[in-house]
C-alpha cells in the first residue's frame, strides 16, 4: 500500500503482482485479457463441434429421403446444433471473449470490477459445453433448441442434462453481465464520461443488464423443466393442470432478449471497425449509443411474437406486433449511421472491414425478413417453415458470426502482437460470403413453398435446391477452416503488428501488443470521444506506455 503514488485524477497506481506459475497465469487466470482469450478459444472449439453437426444436417438433406442418419438422430443433431450455437458459441464469443478482452482496455481500467468472479464465470462455461455435448451419451434432447413441452417432458434422459448445461452457462452469463455493468459504471478513467465511451463499450453497456436479468428468468424456466422431468412436479404437463404455453412465455422472455445479447456486442464491433477503416468520425455517435439502449429496453416487451401460432389472445397479438416492428427503427438508425460513416471515407479494404461491410448486407437482409415475420398474418403462414431458418441464420451467421470474424481480424494483433494474413483473409471472406448466401438464400423460397423445418425427410420437389444449399454449406465450412488455419499460422508466422497497425484511436491501440498484465502504467485522462480523425488523440498520460520505463510498483495482494 505504501508504494502507491497518487497522480492526476487522484487515482493510485496499485497493481497486484503478476502471477508467475503457468496455472495461475494461463489456466485459472484473473486477468481479463487472458479470460477473454480463453473464451475465444473455447467458443471456437464449440463452433467446430456445432458446425460439424450442421454438416450432418446438410448431408442428411442432400436427399429427400434422408438416409444419412435416422430420424431420431436427426432430431438430436439439430437440437444440439442450435443450443450449442446460441449458448456455447455466439453468446460467449460476443460477450465473454470480446467483452472481456476489449472494453476494460477501452475505458482505461486495469481489470474488471470483480476479477475473481470473472474467473468463476469462465470456468462454468467449459463444463456446460461438456454436459451439452455429453447428452448424446444418454440420448440427447430432440425437441429443438427451444425444447417445448410436452415433447421435452417425454424426451430422453439427456434432456435433463441439457437443462443443467444451459443453467450453468446461464449463471456464467448472469455473473459476467453483473461484472461488466459495475465495471462500466464505476471504473472508467478520469474524463471518460458516458458520452465519451467508445461505441463498443456502449454496446456492452446495453447488453450487460440483459444478460443479467433475462438469463435469470431462463434459469427459472430451466429449473421448472428439470423439476418436472426428474421429480414429476407439474408446471407444464397439461394432463396434470400445467400449461405448455407457460414454458413458451418463460423461455421467450429470456430468448428474445438473448437475440439482442447476440447482436448488440456485434453492433459495437462494427461501430469500431467502420470509423477506423474509413478514417472518418463515426456518423451519429449519440444516435448509435442510444439506439443500443432502446433496443435493449424494447427487447423485453416483444417475446410473445414467437408465439403467434400458440393460441395467444388476439388482443395481445397487435401490441406485440407493433412493438416488434418498432425495433426496426433503432436498428435502422444504426445501419444508416454506418453507411453514412463509409460515405466519402478513405476506405481501407482490410479483412476486418470486408467482414463488416458483408455484415451490413446480410444483417440488413435478415433484419428485413424479421419485420416480415413480426406481422401476424405473415407469421401464421411462415411459422415453422424454412423461412424462419433462413431468417435466423441471416441474423445469427450473417450478422453475429460475421461480426465476430471481423472482430477477430481486428483485435487479433492486439491479443497476440501479430497480424493475421490479409490475403488469406480476403479468400476467407469471399468464400464465406458466397457459401453463406448460397446456403441460406434459397431457404427463404423453400420456406414460402411450405418446406417444414426440423424434419428429417421432405417432399422430393425441394431436392434440387437442398442439394445446392448443401454444396454451398461445404464452401462455407471450408472458409471457416481457412479462418482457423490463418489464426493458428499467424500466431507464429504473422507479421509483427506493433502497437497500432490500423491507426485506430481507441485506448487499447495506444498500448503495446499484447498489453502489459496491468494494462496501463498510468491511468490516462480522456478529453473527448475517440473518433475525430482530424484531431490529435484526446488522451493525456500515455507518454510512458510504449517506453521501457518500469510499470507501476506492485502493491501487496489483497
Amino acid at each position, binding site marked *: 500500500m505504501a508504494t*502507491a503514488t*497518487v*497522480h*492526476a*485524477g*487522484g*487515482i*493510485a497506481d*496499485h*497493481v*497486484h503482482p503478476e502471477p508467475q506459475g503457468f496455472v495461475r497465469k494461463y489456466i485459472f487466470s484473473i486477468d481479463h485479457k487472458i479470460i477473454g482469450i480463453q473464451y475465444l478459444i473455447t467458443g471456437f472449439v464449440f463452433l467446430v463441434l456445432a458446425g460439424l453437426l450442421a454438416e450432418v444436417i446438410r448431408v442428411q438433406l442432400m436427399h429427400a429421403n434422408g438416409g444419412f442418419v435416422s430420424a431420431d438422430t436427426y432430431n438430436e443433431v439439430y437440437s444440439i446444433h442450435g443450443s450449442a450455437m446460441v449458448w456455447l458459441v455466439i453468446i460467449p464469443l460476443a460477450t465473454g471473449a470480446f467483452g472481456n478482452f476489449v472494453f476494460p482496455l477501452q475505458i482505461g*481500467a*486495469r*481489470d474488471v*470490477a*470483480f476479477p475473481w468472479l470473472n474467473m468463476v464465470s469462465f470456468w462454468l462455461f467449459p463444463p456446460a459445453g461438456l454436459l451439452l455435448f455429453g447428452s448424446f451419451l444418454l440420448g440427447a434432447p430432440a425437441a429443438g433448441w427451444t425444447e417445448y413441452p410436452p415433447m421435452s417432458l417425454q424426451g430422453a434422459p439427456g434432456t435433463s442434462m441439457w437443462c443443467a448445461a444451459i443453467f450453468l452457462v446461464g449463471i456464467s452469463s*448472469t455473473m459476467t453481465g*453483473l*461484472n461488466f*455493468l*459495475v465495471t462500466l*459504471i*464505476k*471504473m*472508467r*478513467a*478520469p*474524463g*471518460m*464520461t458516458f458520452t465519451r465511451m467508445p461505441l463498443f463499450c456502449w454496446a456492452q453497456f446495453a447488453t450487460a443488464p440483459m444478460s*443479467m*436479468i433475462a438469463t*435469470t*428468468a431462463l*434459469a*427459472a*424456466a430451466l429449473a*421448472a423443466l428439470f*423439476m418436472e422431468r426428474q*421429480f*414429476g*412436479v*407439474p*408446471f407444464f404437463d397439461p394432463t*396434470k*393442470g*400445467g*400449461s405448455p404455453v*407457460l414454458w413458451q*412465455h*418463460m423461455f421467450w*422472455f429470456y430468448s428474445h432478449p438473448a437475440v439482442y445479447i447476440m447482436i448488440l456486442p456485434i453492433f459495437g464491433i462494427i461501430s469500431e471497425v467502420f470509423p477506423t477503416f474509413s478514417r472518418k468520425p463515426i456518423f451519429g455517435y449519440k444516435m448509435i449509443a442510444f439506439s443500443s439502449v432502446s433496443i435493449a429496453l424494447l427487447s423485453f416487451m416483444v417475446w410473445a411474437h414467437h408465439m403467434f401460432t400458440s393460441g395467444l389472445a388476439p388482443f395481445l397479438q397487435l401490441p406485440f406486433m407493433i412493438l416488434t416492428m418498432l425495433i426496426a427503427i433503432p436498428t435502422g438508425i444504426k445501419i444508416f449511421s454506418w453507411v453514412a460513416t463509409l460515405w466519402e471515407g478513405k476506405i481501407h479494404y482490410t479483412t476486418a472491414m470486408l467482414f463488416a461491410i458483408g455484415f451490413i448486407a446480410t444483417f440488413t437482409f435478415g433484419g428485413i425478413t424479421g419485420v416480415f415475420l413480426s406481422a401476424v398474418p405473415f407469421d401464421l403462414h411462415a411459422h415453422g417453415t424454412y423461412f424462419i431458418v433462413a431468417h435466423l441464420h441471416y441474423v445469427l451467421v450473417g450478422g453475429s458470426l460475421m461480426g465476430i470474424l471481423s472482430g477477430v481480424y481486428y483485435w487479433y494483433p492486439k491479443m497476440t502482437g501479430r497480424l493475421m494474413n490479409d490475403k488469406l483473409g480476403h479468400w476467407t471472406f469471399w468464400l464465406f460470403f458466397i457459401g453463406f448466401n448460397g446456403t441460406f438464400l434459397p431457404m427463404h423460397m423453400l420456406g414460402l413453398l411450405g418446406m417444414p423445418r426440423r424434419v428429417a425427410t421432405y417432399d422430393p420437389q425441394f431436392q434440387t435446391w437442398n442439394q445446392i444449399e448443401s454444396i454451398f454449406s461445404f464452401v462455407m465450412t471450408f472458409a471457416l477452416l481457412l479462418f482457423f488455419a490463418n489464426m493458428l499460422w499467424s500466431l507464429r508466422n504473422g507479421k509483427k503488428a506493433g502497437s497500432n497497425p490500423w491507426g485506430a484511436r481507441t485506448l487499447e491501440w495506444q498500448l503495446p501488443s499484447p498489453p502489459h498484465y496491468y494494462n496501463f502504467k*498510468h*491511468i490516462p*485522462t*480522456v*478529453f473527448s470521444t475517440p473518433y475525430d480523425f482530424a484531431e490529435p488523440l484526446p488522451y*493525456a*498520460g500515455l507518454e510512458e506506455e510504449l517506453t521501457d520505463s518500469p510499470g507501476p510498483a506492485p502493491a501487496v495482494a*489483497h
Partner: protein
Amino acid sequence: MAVITVPDGHAHDDGPDQLYVETRELRLQGFLLFLVSDVVLFCSFIFAYLYLRNSGQGWPPAGISRLDVAFAAFNSMVLFGSGCTMHYALENWKHSNFSKYVGCMVATIVLGLMFLGGQGYEYTTLMLKDHVTWGGSGIFGASFFTLTGMHGFHVAVGVIYLSILLLQSVHGTYTKDKYFGLTAGTLYWHFVDVIWVVLFSIFYLI
C-alpha cells in the same frame, strides 16, 4: 507528473485504490445487482404461479383446502421481527455498541430459525394431514412448495450467512469504518423479508 485538469469534471471523484482494488462501493453495487437478478428469479416463478392459477381451473383446485392464514401470519411476524433486529444490529455496529450488536444478531438468527421451524411445521401438517405434496398435488403443490421452498432456502442461507458474519465480527474482521460484509448481510436479510411480503400476499391473502 504534471497535474492535468479535465475540462468538465471527472468520471469519478472517489478515493484512491479504486481502479484495481475491489472497494466497498464496487462491492455494494455488485451486491445490489445480484439482488436484482435474484428478484427476477422469484418474479419468474411468481409469474408462473399466477399464470397457472388463472388458467381457469379454480383456486384452490378441487380437493385442496385453503391455506392456514392465521399460522402463516404469526410466522410472518417472526420474520418481520427479525428484520427489525437486523436493522438494530447494523445501527449498533455503526455506533460501536458491540454487546448490543451481538444481542441483536443472535436474536435475528434465532428468529430466522423460528421462521424455518414454523415453515417446517406448516409443510409437515400439509403433507401428513392434508396430503398435499410437491409433486403429487398438481399445480397447487408445485407452485406453493417451489416458491415457499425457494424462499425458505434463501432464509436458511441467510441464517448461515449471518452466523458467519457474527463469528467474523467477534474475531475482529470488521472495524467501525470497514464493515461491508455486515451491510451486505443486512441488505440480503431485508430482501428476504420483502420477498416474503409478496409471497404471503399472493398465497395466503388473495
